């Protein structure tokens, strides 16, 4: 004991104290491992395209929350790793920036990696794919239409004169850059568009809140010179005007953005841009 004390540069009394603390901690850890399991039920939408005649169904999985991370994505990964490797879903960054794990959890569209599991064990967690989308498999929707709609609004800087491209920065004042705050942060997860009943009924012709907010992002970018053309592209009954301010989009955005407001601002610009053009002539 004295040899140990010398080696550790400790007084004997301190050594005894540390030994006691370690013993207590060991006992606590042993006790913790024997704590009651907290079983949570997860009801997940399943559909397999490779099983002929398969119908969409709900499958229930049980997870001990003591042995699982806090987010719904942690539960899904645990199910896939340990219980059912056929469960299929998209995921990537696990930190709410890539938008891959967008799905409908307990009736609302969010990112599974940001949605905390409700620790109330009496209610199951219900997981569905994004609403009113064609299902590729289990929780994976076909996003191609959404991406094509994004492509259609030409989401890039457009200048009248391309000759200066790449030579110098396009300068922007602090106030003009602030106009982009709350718009550029969109990760195109499609939670908002798939929460919109108008988009459910008219996904072919209505662009939806995500795409419209990005259209607005380019309209009010001071460096872009095609604002008027971008506005006139929405001049039909469907692309923009199927929005009836239901406001499901802003409610559900997992990044806290406000597509409903952006759409209202577009509608205001639509009302006056022709007058501005006529006045300028």
């Amino acid at each position, binding site marked *: 004991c004295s040899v140990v004390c010398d080696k550790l540069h400790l007084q004997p009394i301190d050594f005894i104290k540390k030994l006691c603390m370690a013993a207590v901690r060991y006992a606590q850890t042993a006790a913790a491992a024997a704590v009651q399991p907290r079983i949570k039920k997860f009801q997940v939408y399943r559909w397999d*395209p490779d099983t002929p005649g398969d119908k969409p169904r709900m499958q229930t999985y049980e997870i001990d929350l003591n042995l699982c991370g806090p987010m719904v994505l942690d539960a899904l990964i645990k199910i896939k790793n340990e219980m059912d490797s056929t469960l299929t879903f998209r995921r990537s960054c696990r930190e709410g920036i890539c938008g891959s794990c967008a799905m*409908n959890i307990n009736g609302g569209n969010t990112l599974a990696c940001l949605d905390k599991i409700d620790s109330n064990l009496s209610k199951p967690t219900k997981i569905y794919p994004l609403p009113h989308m064609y299902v590729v498999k289990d929780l994976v929707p*076909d996003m191609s239409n959404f991406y094509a709609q994004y492509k*259609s609004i030409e989401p890039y800087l457009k200048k009248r004169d391309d000759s200066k491209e790449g030579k110098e920065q396009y300068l922007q004042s602090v106030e003009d850059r602030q106009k982009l705050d709350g718009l550029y942060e969109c990760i195109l997860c499609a939670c908002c568009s798939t929460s919109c*009943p108008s988009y459910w009924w008219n996904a072919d012709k209505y662009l939806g809140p995500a795409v419209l907010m990005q259209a607005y992002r380019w309209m009010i970018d001071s460096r872009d010179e095609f604002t008027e053309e971008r506005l006139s592209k929405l001049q039909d009954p469907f692309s923009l005007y199927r929005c009836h301010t239901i*406001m*499901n989009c802003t409610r559900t955005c997992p990044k806290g953005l406000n597509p409903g407001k952006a759409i*209202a601002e577009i509608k205001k610009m639509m009302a006056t841009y022709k007058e501005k053009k006529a006045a300028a002539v």
Partner: protein
Amino acid sequence: MALLLRSVRLGKPLFKSSVLCFRAAPMGTTAKEEMNKFWAKNSSLNRPMSPHITIYKWSIPMMMSITHRGTGIGLSGAISAFAMAALILPGNYTHYLDLIHSLSVGPFLIGLAKFGIAFPVSYHTYNGIRHLYWDIGKGFKIPEVYRTGYTVIGLSVITSIALTLM
């Protein structure tokens, strides 16, 4: 523009090597082509549609929005029906007023009918003002949506009861 450049560039070999790389067709699809492909592919594959109205969690703003539509259709239909009746049915207004008076309906049912007309009118009017407030770009933060929503519900109920008791 970029699409055009890409298609032109790929028409000829890009670098000197023993293996020449040719691309005869232009690359890339337009947004419209991608959309058409999407609809063709999904309808032919018979994929299921993920559930929507049956699973989406209802909220006050969502219910208020559909109620605005419902009361709007109701009011529009009632006015059209009234107009058609006035045009087609024989007899004048006093004749039908006497007809309603002669029916021995209790005051409760009369009150219910009055409320049934007063509520859609007041709700649709107040929510209409809320819509106009949205049209000028105000009140889009979620707490504001709820605040204005509760105000509309409160005012509608009070006004409807007041009109019913008149």
